[in-house]
């Protein structure tokens, strides 16, 4: 009863806060009324399955662990839990954005995963209606009222949406979707969603607390820096008078004077002592000689291993070259791409967690993957077994789908941009790194013109990436092509069009694929066919979306299924017997 009273209060608050922000309604005049799709009451009459508290508690314990170990992916873990315990086809979290006009979908699991990052209008979406009524609602064919769902694939049949609160105010929803009639939501699902919603509120509040703490710590550090602004970073004394470039004159004098008294040439001039190298609140790790630990270096950026001094965790810190950072267009583009990449919240994409600028340099921090690149793996152990290569492909494609949904293209997919690590259970985990960076570089033709304006890695690039900058038509299909070359490399240990010059690669791309390489590693016919389609010179003949590619990869799996495997083994055994006889 008290819940209902609170709920009513929330509705009033919500209505008030909306009326305070006038905006044009997006409800079309001919929209079907909400009642036409609502069937929440049906839940009471449907036969309900018995609760499985053990499973439910296990799932919640796993969620709590996820919150403790990787708070940034908690929402994603939550959606996966919804999917699991409600046995639905798709699930997600929607959060109201600060202006209150729209919900965005920060986490989705199941068949709607590609729509991650999408959104729905506040006043004309299931989430808005649920928040206004402040109770879980069951909707049947919501696309009949919210017609924009017609474009969403696969279409929803039933949607169960539950509100969740923050500090007593509804700020979003969690939802589960069925795409067919094989099972209908029941009262047990409503109970589970309510319980998960309560958990989501707690989790989210914890995250808010963490963010608030981070903010307070960074403010504190800022204040400390302001006090120390007039102190020489080297000698620690006040910068009472400085040289033309802000040099500490005490250090300058000391530098000249010390050698005077020593009267000898110092082999290690002062100024090279190891000391912390900071970018924002990230401290780059240095080795015993004070040299930063670089994880990798490209033409435009260097990636260091760094420590987040606030959360006390290790991250990968990418520092973009000064030259690129000096170009305002490239810099703005870099920020935009970093933002887009930061929104790709997917287990198979290394997340961008912080962006900053310091003394003319731009940097961003991303999740540090404790593994190795696929390039290093293949160079060390040779080609991967087919099952492993397919697993890598599937996970990469899932990550790609998440990027596709955000409209972000990788542009430089290759084995050295795919990291593999093992999760706690020993399961293989693929992480795509460097999302969006290649495109930023493309924005500044004056900086990167090493190969006639070409951006990327020639051996893995699609034919259209070699076109003149103005005429390039680059979309996901380019990434699919690059993934095809990567797949080829994983299976054979080499790229199909290995060559010394771009011209030669371009010519080879339009010719017959060197399928004999695949035969020598006994690649099954389905795999060869998939590779052929991914490596089609004409983008229109490749899988058109990441999801289509995923289906193709799944078909290859069929061949690896236990039954098929047993069949092959039997065949091999009988062949051997025949030979012996």
């Amino acid at each position, binding site marked *: 009863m008290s819940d209902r009273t609170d709920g009513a209060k929330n509705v009033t608050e919500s209505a008030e806060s909306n009326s305070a922000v006038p905006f044009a309604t997006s409800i079309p005049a001919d929209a079907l009324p909400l009642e036409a799709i609502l069937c929440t009451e049906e839940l009471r009459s449907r036969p309900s399955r018995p609760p499985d508290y053990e499973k439910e508690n296990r799932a919640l314990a796993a969620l709590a662990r996820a919150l403790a170990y990787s708070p940034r992916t908690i929402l994603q873990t939550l959606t996966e839990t919804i999917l699991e315990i409600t046995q639905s086809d798709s699930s997600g979290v929607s959060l109201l954005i600060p202006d209150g006009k729209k919900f965005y979908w920060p986490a989705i699991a199941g068949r709607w995963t590609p729509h991650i990052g999408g959104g729905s209008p506040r006043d004309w979406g299931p989430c808005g209606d649920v928040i206004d009524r402040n109770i879980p609602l069951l909707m049947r064919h919501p696309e009949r009222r919210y017609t924009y769902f017609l474009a969403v694939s696969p279409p929803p049949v039933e949607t169960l949406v539950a509100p969740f609160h923050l500090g007593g105010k509804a700020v979003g929803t969690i939802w589960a979707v069925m795409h067919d009639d094989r099972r209908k939501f029941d009262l047990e699902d409503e109970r589970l969603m309510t319980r998960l919603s309560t958990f989501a509120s707690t989790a989210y509040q914890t995250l808010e607390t963490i963010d608030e703490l981070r903010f307070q710590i960074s403010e504190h550090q800022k204040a400390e820096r302001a006090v120390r602004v007039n102190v020489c970073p080297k000698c620690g004394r*006040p910068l*009472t*008078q400085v040289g033309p470039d802000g040099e*500490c004159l005490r250090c300058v*004098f000391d530098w*000249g*004077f010390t*050698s005077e008294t020593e009267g000898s040439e110092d082999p290690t001039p002062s*100024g090279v002592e190891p000391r912390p190298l900071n970018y924002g609140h990230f401290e780059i790790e240095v080795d015993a000689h004070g040299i930063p630990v670089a994880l990798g270096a490209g033409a435009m950026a260097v990636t260091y291993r760094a420590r987040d001094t606030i959360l006390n965790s290790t991250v990968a810190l990418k520092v973009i070259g000064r030259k690129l950072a000096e170009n305002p267009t490239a810099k703005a583009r870099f920020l935009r791409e970093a933002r887009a990449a930061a929104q790709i919240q997917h287990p198979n994409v290394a997340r961008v967690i912080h962006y900053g600028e310091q003394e003319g340099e731009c940097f961003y921090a991303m999740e540090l993957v404790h593994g190795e690149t696929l390039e290093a793996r293949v160079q060390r152990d040779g080609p991967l077994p087919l099952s492993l290569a397919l697993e890598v492909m599937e996970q990469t494609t899932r990550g790609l789908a998440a990027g596709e949904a955000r409209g972000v293209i990788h542009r430089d997919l290759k084995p050295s941009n795919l990291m593999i690590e093992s999760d706690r259970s020993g399961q293989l985990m693929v992480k795509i790194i460097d999302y969006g960076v290649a495109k930023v570089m493309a924005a500044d033709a004056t900086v990167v013109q090493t190969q006639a304006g070409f951006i990327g890695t020639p051996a893995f690039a699609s034919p259209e990436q070699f076109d003149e900058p103005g005429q390039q038509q680059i979309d996901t299909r380019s990434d699919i092509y690059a993934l095809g070359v990567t797949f080829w490399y994983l299976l054979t240990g080499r790229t199909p069009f290995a060559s010394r010059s771009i011209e030669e690669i371009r010519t080879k791309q339009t010719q017959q694929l060197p399928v004999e390489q695949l035969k020598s590693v006994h690649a099954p016919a389905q795999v060869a066919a998939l590779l052929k389609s991914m490596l089609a010179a004409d983008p229109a003949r490749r899988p058109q979306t990441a999801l289509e590619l995923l289906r193709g990869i799944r078909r290859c799996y069929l061949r690896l299924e236990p039954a098929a495997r047993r069949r092959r083994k039997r065949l091999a055994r009988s062949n051997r017997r025949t030979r012996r006889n």
Partner: protein
Amino acid sequence: MQAGQAEADEAARKALATFSETYWPPLYTFVRRRGYSPADAQDIVQGFFVHLFEHNTLTRADQEKGRLRTFLLGSLQNFLLKQRERMSAIKRGGNQQLVSFDLHLPETEAAMQATAHLDQVSCYDLTWALTVAKRSWQRLHETLVAEGKEQWLDELKPFVAGVGAVPPNQEEVAARLGVPVASLRTWLSRLRQRYRELLRAEVANTVSDPADVNEELRYLHRILMA
């Protein structure tokens, strides 16, 4: 004859102007620490330099074999004692303008504020030492710019003094310049040698006995590193 005298006066005046441009910050700091407002302190320092010019005092300083640092401070203290009696007479140094304060006044003011914990004399000495360091450092710049080695200096400068938050790395800088690390170290060593010479020359200008250079350098170093 009169014209010749006027020319000599003009030359002396120019020399003193250059001199005062260099050494006004420590004097100004001292007067400010005595409790004078910025405007009064500027008036007093201006008046002090005019007084030096009119009485030909600097020539006497050379002859009396002493240190410019202590000589100027002593003269300024005397001047301050006397100027109370004739404050009105030295408004803006009479009609004369020897020092232009505008250029470095804010930083000198800031330096004075930053050394508020020191006594007046230590404050003067510190500002003096920084002035010497700055002047010789500027000389090094000028010399290298004249030789067309400005860029070279820009790369090496961070090794000398704490500029920015990022510490330089010899390997990285050497790679950027396209030279072996060993060459970079040689350059740094040469740069240091040149700065050392300029620093000595600068200090030598402020002492009448060359034998005092080392002692004065040590004193200034101690003041700076305190």
